[in-house]
């Protein structure tokens, strides 16, 4: 398999996304979303943990994202991942969904600066990409009254009040900070794991 990977770019250096790349992007998106949902479900039970999920998701999901972009190495991998993430994670609130897609596009631009060759920029792009974890919460910041009505109906007074007390005006920025911090830790883990397991196997 490693051999095939080495021959392919040499014979036909193409920048276009082939069906193979689309399959990789779609499949990694499925893994990403499943892992992300698992984390959110576990953390969702406590208001404080619920609000700092971007941190945990960043730590765990970085490896999946990095493997996806390092495997495909073309324009579009991060974007497809971002779109599928946005559609499943924040489909309930349209502005949030579009922000999430925009964030994915920004991450794609970061990779573009590295010309799809520099590993550093591949790794850095996740710091931007993970900001999309804040988007499912945008409902809470931009559309507060309806979110509160929902939380009260679903989780009861005490939970809703807990979330409301924590969701102050600086909270979105704190969440963004946490998202970047989580992503930074995650990227460190990811680069180690990828070096230890996947580069040795010749996969990326």
């Amino acid at each position: 398999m490693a051999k095939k990977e080495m021959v392919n770019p040499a014979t036909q250096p193409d920048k276009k996304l082939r069906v193979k790349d689309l399959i990789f992007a779609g499949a990694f998106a499925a893994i990403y979303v499943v892992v992300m949902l698992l984390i959110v479900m576990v953390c969702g039970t406590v208001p404080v943990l619920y609000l700092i999920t971007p941190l945990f998701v960043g730590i765990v999901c970085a490896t999946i994202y990095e493997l996806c972009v390092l495997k495909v190495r073309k324009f579009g991998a991060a974007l497809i991942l971002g779109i599928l993430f946005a559609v499943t994670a924040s489909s309930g609130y349209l502005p949030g969904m579009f922000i999430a897609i925009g964030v994915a596009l920004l991450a794609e631009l970061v990779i573009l600066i590295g010309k799809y060759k520099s590993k550093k920029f591949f790794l850095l792009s996740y710091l931007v990409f993970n900001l999309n974890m804040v988007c499912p919460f945008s409902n809470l910041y931009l559309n507060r009254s309806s979110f509160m009505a929902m939380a009260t109906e679903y989780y009861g007074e005490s939970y809703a009040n807990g979330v409301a007390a924590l969701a102050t005006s600086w909270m979105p920025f704190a969440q963004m900070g946490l998202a970047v911090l989580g992503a930074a830790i995650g990227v460190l883990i990811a680069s180690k794991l990828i070096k230890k397991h996947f580069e040795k196997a010749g996969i990326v």
Partner: protein
Amino acid sequence: MDLTFYGEDVKGLIRVDPRTKVLIFITSSLVCVSSYSDIGIAMYSVVLCILFALCGKPMTALKASLALGVVLFVRAMMGNSKGAPEVIVMVLTLITTSFMFAFPTLMSIYFIVKTTRISHFLSAFQAMHVPVKAIVPVAVFFRFLPTVTDEWNGIRKAMAFRGISLSPVQIIVHPWKTIEFILIPMLFSSMSVMEELAAATMARGMDLEVRRSSYEEVKLHAVDYLLIVLFAAMFVLAAVIAQMAKEGAVL
């Protein structure tokens, strides 16, 4: 839940077009976040279960609706019993709420996965002139959700065989190790599945930039139009109920 990779609806009484199924998925996720009442979601979920049964998966539908019934019963009971300890009420509320909240979306994803063949999915959206580059990732995404679950079960068994437990306690005590033990095998085995999938699509000529012909019959039937109207109506109804609940009506 047994998850087979390839959805099939030949045994079903009705065949639903993949486009209708995707519309149902979108409606479901909208209903989840815009409806604030149990009644709206319960009604919606029951219709979803009936549809599941009609499409040839009566056992799945039965299991899902039984689970839904139990959760609704618990919720109704909680409203009536006042003397219960605070902690139990809190925990039960959280569990039942997560269930209610996730049920329509997960059920409709499961519906797509269980009853749609990938080739049917592809040809239906190609008939709508959606570019292949947009369809393939979405199709693979839905195809891969059960695979991830399956891989996860396999990894858990393999790790148990080697005496590594993946219990919550272990995850808290050794977070770094757990990430490595779960994520790396999962990515490795998923990646080989991806390679095979890519080879299979290559062999079918998906990489060519010509219009593909298909044996699949692609047409919206009367059933589809009926379902589209039905789900649109239910969405509006759920929104109306939500509005009423917001204004303080007791339901």
